[in-house]
């Protein structure tokens, strides 16, 4: 009798503990996620966590559904209380999300803040996908996506390798007061141009800098590359091509100019292989079809 009762009690206790564990596990499964970083938002949606994302930063422009989420502002200028008003369980932050004080305040308020690694090169993107998957507790989907990414990237690279000719590409970020702001060495733009079978026409300086007229004429780019939104702001591609310094280059004379979505081209998100393929097609219009791109 006593033994029965004690076994009953222990069974019941076990049952209780089991329920507690279950609810605890359930509580850990993130339900309300805020993401700061356009590339991270893309990865979260690609991993199927889109439904749980309640807020994104202003660089999150893809997929379309991300634009319906609450807008928390620019990734380097977040407001801790603004983010907290979305009552997030999980905050997935780009490596450069800030300011520091806001991140500390979020952690103090009990939000699970997960900083993601920086992808300095296309090669680092799978690691970023895996890291986001880990934060979202979707590790299987993440490793599948990372593998798919690597495979697609390899296929695209093999096709790009078959293309001959390396057009000189000038990446113009924006036109400020009549001077083009150009992507030099050590930029995401240069890496994308090179991976798409082109070479960067702007050499001799790092980062995005204003480039002087004579230097642009000297660089003699064959193709002008711009981000869609910025091309529009600068009065359209034609207007940029008609700028005196560009009109005198091969690109200006043949009218060769390419625009791409900014996040697609420079975001270093899961769509990067597609971006390389798209750019390669634009840089080698005839050869690309033969190479199967």
């Amino acid at each position, binding site marked *: 009798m006593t033994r029965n009762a004690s076994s009953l009690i222990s069974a019941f206790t076990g049952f209780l503990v089991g329920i507690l564990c279950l609810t605890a596990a359930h509580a850990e499964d993130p339900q309300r996620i805020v993401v700061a970083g356009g590339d991270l938002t893309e990865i979260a949606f690609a991993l199927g966590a889109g439904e749980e994302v309640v807020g994104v930063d202003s660089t999150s422009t893809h997929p379309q559904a991300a634009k319906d989420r*609450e*807008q928390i502002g620019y990734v380097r200028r977040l*407001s801790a*209380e603004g983010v907290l008003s979305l009552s997030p369980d999980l905050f997935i932050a780009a490596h450069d999300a800030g300011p520091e004080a*806001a991140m500390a305040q979020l952690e103090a308020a009990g939000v699970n803040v997960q900083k993601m690694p920086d992808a300095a090169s296309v090669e680092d993107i799978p690691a970023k996908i895996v890291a986001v998957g880990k934060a979202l507790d979707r590790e299987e989907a993440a490793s599948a996506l990372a593998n798919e990414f690597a495979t697609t990237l390899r296929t695209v690279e093999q096709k790009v390798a078959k293309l001959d000719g390396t057009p000189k590409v000038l990446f113009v970020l924006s036109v400020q007061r009549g001077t083009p702001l150009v992507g030099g060495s050590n930029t995401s733009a240069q890496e994308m141009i090179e991976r798409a079978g082109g070479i960067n026409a702007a050499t001799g300086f790092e980062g995005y800098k204003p480039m002087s007229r004579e230097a642009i004429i000297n660089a003699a780019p064959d193709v002008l590359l711009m981000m869609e939104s910025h091309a529009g702001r600068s009065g359209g591609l034609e207007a940029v091509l008609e700028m005196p310094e560009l009109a005198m280059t091969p690109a200006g004379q043949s009218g060769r100019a390419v625009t791409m979505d900014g996040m697609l081209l420079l975001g270093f998100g899961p769509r990067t292989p597609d971006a390389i393929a798209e750019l390669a097609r634009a840089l080698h219009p005839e050869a690309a079809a033969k190479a199967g791109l």
Partner: protein
Amino acid sequence: MLLSVLCLCVMVAELALGPVTIPPDRILAVLSGSGTQAEHAIFWQIRAPRMLLGIATGVALAFSGAALQGLLRNPLAEPGLIGVTAGASMGAVTVIVLGGALLVPAVIAPFMLPLAAFIGSAVVVAILFVLAAGGRGQSITILILAGVALNAIAGAFIGVLVYISDDQQLRDLTFWTMGSLGTAQAELVVIVSCLALATVPVFVWQTRALDLLQLGDRAAFHSGLNVTKSRLLIGGSTALSVGAVTCAAGPIGFIGLVAPHIARLLFGPVHAVLLPAAALIGVVLVLSADLAVRMAVPPAEPPIGLATSLIGGPFFLWLVLNQIRKGQRIA
């Protein structure tokens, strides 16, 4: 009197309102020590430091502005005019752009930006005083002209750094120059607020001197005032208080210029009344601007610099026009 009530109201609003709704009973719960971790953090880590920094900023800018307008006998004087703000910006920009290249111990790394901003403003003010001290009776003119020159030099220096910065640093810079009460750590807020508020007694002590200085330096001297000492005390306090709040909140324009004028229009030119009134107005302006940016487009938050001018500007204009209609002198 009415002003202090208004000031108290915005202070309570600053604590009670925000994108996260915390009802009054929950605020009492937080104050009595209960309340959830999130409520606790929002109240003590986010809203309370913002309020403290807002008060310090309003007081420091308004006191400095009022005192400088009196000292220089120039209605357009403000902390920015003599280069204090530009000096702080120079320090901050240096850290934002070259910070990665400087070797600093990890302990002080989070405080590098405010420290540099403070050193920047201190250096500018030190140069000003050395120049003005050799002025032989023309120190006021020298102070203003040297301020113009130092502003230009600081501007050029910032320009060079902006040129060599990468795009991310550039965005940090742009946002820093628009100011915010929400980006400073709580510890830093306490330090700079103490520094800024420590200068309050000095300003209050100098109110009679400021009144005398309105007669001109010579007349003030013959009334028994140690003009050089007053100038040093007021200039030093301005550098300390404005340098301190600028390093935590960024350059917040307009308050230092307009709060004293509003106070003068409402309460007249006697500095013993003018200074406290300007300080209250400064606090009301800064805190209501902060509330405005916080509540405008949550969960995002625009910089406070946009709101101070948007709120203070039209009000100031209305006040001036009203005064003209009544046929009164303005300054």
